[in-house]
């Protein structure tokens, strides 16, 4: 399964789930982030906390190339600089008011975030396209047992009877949960994708049953 070190790329979301001009919460090994896409399509990963009064920035709104906090409208650039404080419209906010940002890259329809600035690019999964993401209340071990296969660095491939093969990228989260990005081969039809989605749901059910029974050591 994928490393949870902070200097490697972690797949936090799918491109299709973050349209232009929107923000969403995501989790990384180094803490929660507000992942957002500006009007021009550029991605940014800001720490999910406004330094004013601690409100989650992932609840904020995107206008142009900036993200604003829903609480008081404090506005941040993609680089993390505070650009505007609506309570003081003529004030240029001091440079000290900023949010930490992370490296973010989009590849193969997947959004990857790293804490540092890795030299390499995120992996590409030739021939596969993202299907959807789901969260399981089960650990990676339970998932592996349910799939009957050992998880490798690039996730693993699994096939339910009557469904296309799916590739799963499991990412450990807090509280024993696992975020799973599901990929299918690019040639899958719409009905095959629906079958693949249902297969992923079955796998999740099996993994959660295993986890609930006492997990896997």
């Amino acid at each position: 399964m994928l490393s949870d070190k902070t200097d490697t790329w972690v797949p936090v979301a799918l491109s299709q789930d973050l349209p232009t001009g929107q923000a969403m919460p995501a989790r990384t090994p180094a803490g929660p982030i507000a992942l957002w896409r500006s009007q021009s399509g550029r991605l940014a990963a800001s720490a999910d906390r406004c330094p004013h009064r601690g409100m989650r920035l992932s609840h904020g709104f995107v206008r142009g190339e900036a993200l604003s906090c829903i609480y008081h409208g404090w506005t941040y650039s993609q680089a993390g600089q505070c650009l505007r404080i609506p309570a003081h419209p003529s004030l240029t906010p001091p440079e000290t008011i900023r949010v930490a940002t992370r490296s973010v890259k989009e590849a193969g329809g997947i959004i990857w975030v790293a804490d540092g600035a890795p030299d390499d690019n995120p992996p590409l999964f030739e021939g596969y396209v993202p299907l959807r993401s789901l969260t399981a209340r089960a650990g990676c071990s339970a998932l592996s047992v349910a799939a009957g296969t050992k998880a490798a660095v690039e996730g693993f491939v699994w096939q339910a009877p009557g469904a296309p093969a799916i590739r799963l990228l499991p990412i450990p989260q807090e509280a024993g949960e696992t975020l799973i990005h599901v990929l299918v081969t690019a040639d899958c039809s719409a009905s095959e994708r629906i079958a693949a989605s249902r297969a992923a749901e079955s796998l999740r059910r099996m993994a959660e049953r295993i986890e609930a029974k006492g997990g896997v050591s």
Partner: protein
Amino acid sequence: MIDDAMRDEWYPVGLFSRLDRDGRETTLMGGPIKVALDANGAAKVTGENGRVLPVSVRYGHIWSSLGEPKKPVFPIPEADQPGRRFVDVGVVRVRCSPLRAVENFLDIAHFPFVHTDILGSEPHTEVENYKVEIREEEDEVWATQVKFYQPQAAKSASGGITTEYMYRVPAPTCSVLYKTCPPRPGEWDVIALFVQPLAEDLCDVWPWMALFDDETPLTDLIHFQQTIFLQDRSILENQIPRLLPLDPGMEIPTRADLTSVAYRRWLKRHNYTYGAQLVAQ
């Protein structure tokens, strides 16, 4: 952490009009309490092991304490003014620090973003200078000459006006705001937030009002205030850290936040730390 300082304060624990002989079970700073009417129709509060706790009935609410309050519940003189209507808005539970709940109530810069088109709207976002002091004699935080332009400031307002406010913190988990009153220029409408700390990150909020308004039906007044508070609730449950930082470093105030800065300083001075965190992390 319950400090003696906060233990000896009064806290709201129920609405008098909704109380009966069966009473209600609730919590005060982590300890179970029971609030009920006794055989004579008086309010009675008991803590763990049946220990009788101090009780006071003020502003439509029952107040109690885990310790020994040295003063009665703080005064609100407007509550004794003839012609006022009193509104028990009803309790709302919030998963946040009781101190965060109070601090949000003191803030106006969020009006255009959280109470959009009711208490404020873009582009009227500027917060002009106002006056803040800690009144030593009463030992209360006061903000005065606070002004904000509002599209629909109160149920009794017919259009946009610049509303003037005063804010007051008479107890660590209570705040009273005074706002200009359209039907009676020169008088203040009073809106109070009485916060019951259940745990350091959980509280029951009891809003209450004393208004000059003979026209608006009671339910409309209740709904208006509940609307405002519910809009704040989804902010309050998403602030990090949960506990209110009393030391500088974690959070950055501006001039618009002078009331909250004074409130945090006043809390720290008194060692009112239940619901707070001290060292910046």
